[in-house]
């Protein structure tokens, strides 16, 4: 794993978040949520800082990070694409939509495109089952997506 | 916001708050209250339906009669505009024609309050205006 050096203000940011939660070990998940929302992902170096601040072992932090699918150690693309794989979306063809995204962007689930523009993830039920199959790009939700719509959706973000 | 300090305060507050959504409560259970529908298509408005409606809303409220006053499209009795359909709980709806303020007063006093029919009924008998 290539080591990255965290900028000083990043380290400070992490420390501040830990302090916000009183450096309590039991607040680990809250801390991880906060840090990921600020940094976008949780690389090893970040986990090391968190472990130190919360006075716990980095193995434990890593154990928690890898347990929960919400946490990621890979930087997300500029436009994170999530395909809902809940049952409702699945029976209405989400898998074909996912395959089309993978084909068009030439990346697998959990990966980012080379230019860093897109990343693909699957998620479980965003609760918009009436619009199945559902795809989200960033905050925006696309409903009733067919494989033929994929190109159009990608194009929307390509030239930004 | 100030803190609610007792159950009695809370109950009082509920009553105040209730008036704000009374319209919603009544529309959810329209069968239990008086329903007044005012024809508000172009023809109706031209004949003063808006004033009629306003009158119903204000008067019913003042007399604390639980009622839902709604507007509706053209009822097809343009000759008799403004037309008003009144439905009392558990009764068939009745449509009145040429309802201006005075007529409205009469409808409220006689029909809505006492259930006594008033002149000016347009015979529709089996259809409501939504159909």
């Amino acid at each position: 794993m290539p080591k990255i050096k965290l900028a000083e203000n990043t380290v400070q940011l992490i420390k501040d978040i830990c302090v916000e939660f009183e450096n309590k070990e039991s607040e680990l998940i809250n801390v991880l949520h906060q840090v990921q929302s600020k940094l976008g992902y949780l690389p090893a170096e970040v986990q090391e800082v968190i472990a130190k601040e919360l006075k716990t072992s980095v193995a434990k932090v890593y154990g928690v990070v890898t347990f929960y699918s919400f946490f990621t150690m890979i930087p997300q693309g500029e436009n994170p694409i999530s395909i809902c794989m809940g049952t409702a979306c699945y029976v209405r063809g989400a898998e074909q939509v996912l395959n089309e995204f993978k084909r068009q962007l030439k990346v697998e689930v959990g990966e980012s495109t080379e230019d860093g523009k897109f990343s693909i993830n699957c998620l479980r039920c965003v609760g918009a089952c009436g619009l199945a199959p559902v795809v989200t790009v960033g905050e925006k939700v696309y409903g009733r997506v067919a494989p033929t719509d994929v190109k159009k959706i990608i194009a929307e973000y390509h030239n930004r | 916001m100030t803190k609610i300090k007792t159950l009695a305060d809370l109950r009082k507050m509920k009553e105040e708050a209730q008036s704000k959504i009374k319209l919603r409560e009544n529309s959810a259970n329209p069968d239990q209250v008086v329903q007044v529908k005012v024809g508000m298509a172009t023809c109706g408005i031209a004949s003063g339906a808006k004033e009629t409606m306003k009158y119903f809303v204000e008067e019913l409220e003042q007399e604390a009669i639980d009622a839902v006053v709604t507007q509706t499209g053209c009822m097809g009795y343009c000759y008799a505009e403004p037309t008003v359909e009144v439905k009392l709980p558990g009764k068939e709806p009745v449509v009145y024609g040429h309802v201006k303020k005075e007529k409205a007063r009469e409808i409220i006093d006689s029909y809505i309050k006492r259930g006594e029919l008033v002149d000016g009924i347009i015979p529709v008998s089996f259809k409501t205006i939504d159909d």
Partner: protein
Amino acid sequence: MDTVNLTIDNKPVVVKSGTTILEAASGVGMHIPTLCHMKLDDLNIENKPGGCRICVVEVEGRRNLAPACCTDVSEGMKINTHSMRVINARRTVMELILSDHPFDCLICAKSGNCDLQDMAHNLGIREIHYKGEQSTYREDTSPAIIREVDKCIMCRRCETMCNEVQTVGVLSAINRGFESVVSPAFEMNLDHSVCTYCGQCVAVCPTGALTEVDETGKVIRALSDPTKTVIVQTAPAVRAALGEEFGMEAGSLVTGKLVAALRRLGFDHVFDTDFAADLTIMEEGTELLNRLGKHLAGDKDVKLPILTSCCPAWVKFFEHQFPEMKDIPSTARSPQQMFGAIAKTYFADQLGIKREDLVVVSIMPCVAKKYECGRDEFKTNDNPDVDHAITTRELAALIKLSNIDFTALPNEDFDNPLGESTGAGVIFGTTGGVIEAAVRTAYEVHTKKELPKLDFDELRGMEGIREATIDFDGLPIKIGIAHGLGNARKLLEDIQAGNSEFHAIEIMSCPGGCIGGGGQPYHHGDAGILKKRQAALYTEDKNKTLRKSHLNPHIIELYEKFLGEPMSEKAHHLLHTEYFDRT
């Protein structure tokens, strides 16, 4: 206490409430198999995740099967430990475990000593009905421990040892579902982690997922090299455990056979680490008295308590976790390293050979010793003071490999000059032993009086943290003892907080001390074995004519001829060390 009536396999049983089905069954001779569950009585160590599901039993009226290890008995319970439903479930669960386990039993380091293998055999598994994908991981080799993660069955015993018992925090369950496995953070190698190599993970692993680095090959090569003189030292705890590898009763003392075996293996001189233990007492004891003296004289710069430093895992532990306290432990090297330093100078000179031509092998109950002898500060011109450290288990393998019938061996004596030891050196192998040995010497040196009684019962036992005050002829000396790094951490935190009143503290990384070391024959979850080994060492001590380190004639000679006096410049150079901040 309340009692509970129940039946197990139709036998009526009365047990205390709060007893588990497993314990209750064991009481009536029904040994329900377990895999993840491990309870080390007296040491307060328990691993009870309820995860393997091998121990399931049928409880009448219950919808599903109950795990015996974590289900408490209740009044009127009717339990069947081997109904068809139970056997079927147990076998299926075992098949599932095996379906995700490599089939290399014949060449596995754990073969013949593997809980998983035994259990598969006992359950009569002859076929795996549910084959499928197997998880594969990179093998991780460190200076002391090998992790073959493919063989991990997620029993979590190592995780419990590493976190709850040792508080080292290197291992954790990671990922989830089929991908889950126990690993260091970021799946890094152990040698990049804060691992102390205490080897307690190895000691409890029920499969071949965690084993020591095998150095028997290197020893064989050295022994067969005609240009080398190969000498061996053997640690105190080895003699109390080696017999177990040859079917002998736990707690059998096999010192004489051990010497005989080593001689037959071809070592040129068979020496004893106990000798170096006596030497350690001379240095460490003197250091204690020096510090104590200055402290009593009001010197504010001197730090107390003094902490023992013979355990390499403990040393690595505080270098990683408490680097700001690295000036508190004694600077004395461990007996293994003192032995190596003396062997490659004093003894090599006696033989008239170069240090490069002398190979020092040590037999240790420990895997961290492998790491210790590789530390740079214990090398001269890149030549280590101790060349190879092998575990008790590796020695047993060597003996078997060399066709030696161990149980039939005669008792033989160690060679001199580095083979003579006192009872004080022997008890280094158990928790409390080092400090007791130090007290025996320090008392007499300080008070210039002879001890009326040599057995300090107040320092002995299996309690994780013990404390005692020893009267040094009017001067009360407060002593602390901790074994298990979690217990050590508590004492360290007290010191950090300024709440420690101890003058001296003995710390051993492994529960029980070296008798419970990561390189010892596997205890398979039976803590009673450790107590028997401990008793054996105290017996050996009792039977020795000399029981105080400062009375060891060869030690006296060593100082006279070579070192001068304890803490002399030469002693400092050869027998003391420094510590590093590893954060």
